[in-house]
């Protein structure tokens, strides 16, 4: 309903207190360890994989894919929310490194080769090193 060109539903709804379903919160808490824990979980699953029975193998694959998706998510949060232009100036390899590491997380979905998980861990370690360097007082 419009009154004097104003959408009354929109106008009234603006007066209702907001509740946030934001994709981010201003908590400022970031830590590459979140991605690392998920990556270590993938590595652990793949180490055990050859000894598992058929049912457990199915579960392992399913859980491994979930963990890989979480690795990507946590790295994207760092990439898009934490790292700032000044960090990229100092660490120009950061874009490529994050891109390659998230691609590597995708690779671990497609394989049962533990080496791929270890490559993922190595990528996260590099991002983590940069992250903690940015945390040092200037």
């Amino acid at each position, binding site marked *: 309903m419009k009154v004097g060109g104003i959408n009354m539903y929109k106008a009234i*709804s*603006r007066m*209702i*207190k*907001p*509740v*946030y*379903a*934001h*994709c*981010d*919160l*201003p*908590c400022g*808490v970031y830590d590459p360890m*979140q991605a690392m824990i998920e990556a270590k979980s993938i590595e652990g699953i793949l180490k055990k994989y050859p000894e598992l029975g058929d049912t457990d193998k199915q579960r392992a694959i399913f859980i491994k894919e979930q963990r890989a998706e*979480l690795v990507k*998510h946590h790295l994207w*949060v760092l990439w898009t929310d934490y790292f700032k232009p000044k960090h990229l100036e100092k660490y120009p390899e950061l874009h490529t490194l994050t891109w390659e590491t998230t691609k590597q997380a995708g690779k671990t979905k497609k394989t049962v080769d533990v080496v791929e998980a270890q490559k993922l861990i190595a990528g996260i370690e590099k991002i983590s090193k940069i992250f903690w360097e940015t945390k040092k007082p200037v």
Partner: protein
Amino acid sequence: MLWSLPLTLRRVVGPSMYPTLKNNQIVLAWKSKNYSVNDIVIFSLNNREIIKRISDMNHNLVYVLGDNLKSSIDSRKFGWINLEDIKYKIILKK
């Protein structure tokens, strides 16, 4: 006093509960004392009211997730929340 009413309206801001709740959608919330898994709840975090769905409960701790997992920062990031931080349960969406 208005703040003590057991029923309240809130306007959802953000995409993390999509498709269940869309940006700017109005919800009716009930100040409940009983919460269970799958309830959509409003809780306080960093002095803000946040809306998510209860995914798991363990005694006094609650794990909350957004329905839009790809665009939600939730207990996967900030961990379990305390049951006493939950203020309302969503009972109706418009």
